[in-house]
């Protein structure tokens, strides 16, 4: 599981090494590290890391260990890999139903409507869907479009 972790480190030599130790000790594999020196605030520098931990428990223990050595944690959240899914819906559809569906971590990144008031109304949707949930989200959309008597065309 990948996590996006941002730390505020004192701008002194040796602080980064000190902060990395608990990460390594708890099984974290660092994917990327950015030292955001330009965002330097009152003697602290933000350091953004993407870390692959075996489980969420490993992240929790790392945070505890970092706090114990007085490292300030600005952010720690799971990195969700997303897939862009383009869809076309043919027919009159209540857009509210789509919005109300509220698929977790799914974002509408593009929307285009053609001939909205006619029988041939068409909507193109671009969605950012968590990669693991693409099949589930498509199945749910298929169900909704069937109920609305709308044709759903997904990408291959």
């Amino acid at each position, binding site marked *: 599981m990948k996590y996006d972790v941002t730390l505020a480190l004192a701008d002194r030599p040796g602080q980064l090494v000190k902060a990395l130790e608990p990460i390594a000790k708890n099984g974290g594999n660092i994917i990327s590290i950015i030292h955001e020196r330009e965002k330097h605030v009152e003697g602290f520098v933000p350091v953004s890391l993407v870390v692959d931990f075996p489980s969420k428990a490993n992240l929790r223990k790392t945070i505890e260990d970092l706090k114990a050595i007085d490292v300030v944690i600005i952010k720690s959240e799971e990195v969700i890999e997303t897939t862009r899914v383009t869809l076309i819906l043919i027919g009159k559809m209540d857009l509210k139903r789509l919005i109300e569906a509220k698929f977790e971590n799914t974002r509408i990144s593009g929307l285009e409507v053609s001939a909205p008031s006619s029988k*041939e109304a068409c909507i193109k949707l671009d969605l950012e869907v968590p990669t693991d949930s693409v099949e589930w989200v498509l199945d749910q959309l298929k169900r909704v479009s069937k109920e609305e008597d709308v044709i759903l065309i997904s990408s291959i």
Partner: protein
Amino acid sequence: MKTIIVGFGFIGRDLVRVINEKRDIITKYDRNFKLVGVSNSKGYIYNEEGLDLEKLLKIKNLSEYGKNYKDNGSSLELIQKSNADLMVEATPTRIQDGEPGLSYIKKALNIGIHVVTSNKGPLVVAFQELSALAKKNNCEFLFEATVAGAVPIFSLVRECLQGDKVKRISGILNGTTNYILSKMYFEETSFELALKEAQERKISEKDPSYDVDGIDAACKLVILANALMDRNAKFEDVERLGIRGITQNAVSLAKKSKFAIKLVGTIDKKLEVAPKLVPINHPLCVHGTLNAVHVETDLANEITIIGYGAGKETVSAVFNDVLTVLKKAKTTA
């Protein structure tokens, strides 16, 4: 090898023409190749010394062939009496029960006759049964023409990917719907107009439901799933949506985003035939009456094969299946 052709329609007749024209290739594998019988629903002609192919090509009805014609003689009777080694079965497809082709193929395999067929019906209805029957009786059972016409998808997997495991297949398996959707894409016509033109050009039947409702593509998907992925799939297992509801608005909207709408058959966890958005730079994005099959395997990863799915090119698949039977018989002799 003594051969009979059951079904003397477009494909059967064209096969006679090709056998006549390419005799030199046939002779390479079998010097004694003879076409001894041809049948249709009205009767059959049979001559154990071999039929005169030039004469056969000139006649419209089998009854015009002369003394070797048996009026009302059934194809089953020809299969039984001909003592043939190979039957090419090219009767019209009926997907409800696979008949009459199913009975002809069963009869032939039961008495040890190799079978080449272009008929989807029997394979959709009874693929496992026919494959088992062929194996039990040491017969070849080849059906390249049943899916995507001249596109040699079964030969490709059988010969060139025999060590690969096929994980997923997707394809444009119906030339008529691809023609209609291509017209809508390039000429911005409505579905109704594109269909009318397809009917005028004889690309689509007067009753277009077999094509536009995805029935034909679903049949092909069942055959692919059973033959290449060892599934026990039936026609009813295919989730199916045709192209009747596709509007010009939808095609244009897709085009603006660099997609074309195509009727795609997919074998993954489930079997599905449905209109899909195909990126215009994807190898499956072929136009006109072309078919394309995209195979994903464990070793080769992705392979796409493109060609004509119906019409005069289909004879290539049937003729090459015949040659495969002759070649294997020569090797094992």
